[in-house]
């Protein structure tokens, strides 16, 4: 592989790994406080899977970038993480040592973000499964098998919240609208994706996955009678809001500073510790 291709693929894999790590980290915050004990188990498992996938992508990136997975996961500066900003926000109530854990928690938002991200990730891994870089293609086949369970779980909760009367459905509708610009930010390309497509390392750019995702989300909204926040016209999709971009370039929101500080705390205190 030519040097510029190697570095573009490494950079792209960091984007994917960062998405998985950050969503995994945020979803793990539901452990112990999910609305049902079965969801304590499920969300912990989902988070563990995503962090496992992140580890695998970091290992692949480390080979290409001559680094190591632990450093890539926890040793970079805050501006060198490339996850989409929608994944970095907290969906749980913030822990308060005084015992007053009030405000901010929204299970419907956690469910909607996870499911709609998984629909995106399914399209993204599909674009990697026949990559000409064999270690990546093999890893993605493995990841896709595990993700079938995530999609099944997400679809069941999407239906459950939407078909409930009252607050659950309102919260799901509200979550979809609140997350919408951020979700569109998932489709921002990493630098060098054109090159990766030309070299057969990736079958479609991240931005080329958007229309297929919109169709899927529209179908899931239609199936449960939730208003879908975009319209298909003869000229293509009409979307009223601007995507919340920047994450893929290392630009993040206020939630990231807090998360980065917490997530890298042990590494900074004890750089030789292994996970």
């Amino acid at each position, binding site marked *: 592989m030519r040097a510029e291709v190697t570095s573009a693929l490494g950079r792209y894999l960091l984007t994917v790994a960062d998405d998985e790590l950050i969503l995994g980290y945020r979803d793990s915050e539901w452990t112990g406080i999910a609305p049902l004990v*079965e969801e304590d*188990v*499920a969300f*912990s*498992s*989902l988070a*563990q*899977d*995503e*962090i*496992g*996938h992140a*580890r*695998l992508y970091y*290992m692949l990136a480390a080979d290409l970038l001559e680094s190591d997975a632990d450093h890539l996961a926890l040793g970079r500066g805050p501006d060198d993480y490339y996850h989409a900003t929608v994944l970095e926000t907290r969906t749980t109530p913030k822990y308060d040592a005084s015992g007053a854990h009030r405000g901010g928690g929204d299970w419907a938002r956690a469910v909607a973000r996870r499911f709609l991200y998984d629909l995106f990730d399914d399209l993204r891994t599909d674009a990697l499964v026949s990559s000409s870089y*064999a*270690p990546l293609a*093999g*890893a993605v*086949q*493995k*990841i896709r*098998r*595990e993700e*079938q*369970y995530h*999609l*099944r*779980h997400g*679809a*069941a909760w999407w239906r459950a919240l939407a078909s409930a009367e009252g607050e659950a459905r309102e919260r799901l509708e509200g979550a979809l609208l609140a997350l919408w610009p951020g979700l569109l930010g998932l489709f921002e390309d990493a630098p060098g994706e054109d090159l990766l497509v030309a070299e057969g390392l990736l079958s479609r750019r991240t931005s080329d996955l958007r229309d297929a995702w919109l169709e899927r989300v529209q179908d899931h909204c239609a199936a449960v009678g939730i208003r879908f926040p975009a319209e298909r016209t003869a000229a293509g999709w009409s979307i009223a809001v601007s995507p919340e971009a920047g994450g893929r370039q290392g630009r993040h929101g206020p939630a990231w500073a807090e998360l980065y500080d917490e997530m890298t705390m042990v590494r900074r205190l004890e750089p030789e510790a292994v996970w």
Partner: protein
Amino acid sequence: MGASTITEAEIWEALREVPDPEIPTINVVDLGIIRRVTVGDPIRVEMMPTFTGCPAIDMMRQDIEARLSAFGPVEVVVVYDEAWTSDRITAAGREMLRAADLAPPPHGAIRLTPVPVTPVACPYCGSTDTQIENLFGPTPCRSIFYCRACRQPFEQFKAV
């Protein structure tokens, strides 16, 4: 014992004595996670994880190294370029899962449906009058079911 006197069969036999740390009734060979053994210096063992996020991977690697160290230097390589699937569990391995009160996974690739298509038999009473309680369980590789016949919750090793 020198490397020249060891056979590959002996290594496989020794690996059958290495239990899964979470499900000690099954060994790493019958679980299907050993892809290849190469006798040499060092002895090379290729291991395929069941789930990428499985926290037992490092422990299994250490257990394999410890068991084989009597034969000489050992290198355990965790491989991800080919997917482990639950169809790699041997027929004997499926019985070993039952011995741990785990329902073995159904054969064949999983399909994206809201509920599993194949009825899952309860490992306690054998009834297929069971329902899924949770796609996820106490480890990444298990789901939780409930048996309506004997009113017992049980776990299934996931199909993947």
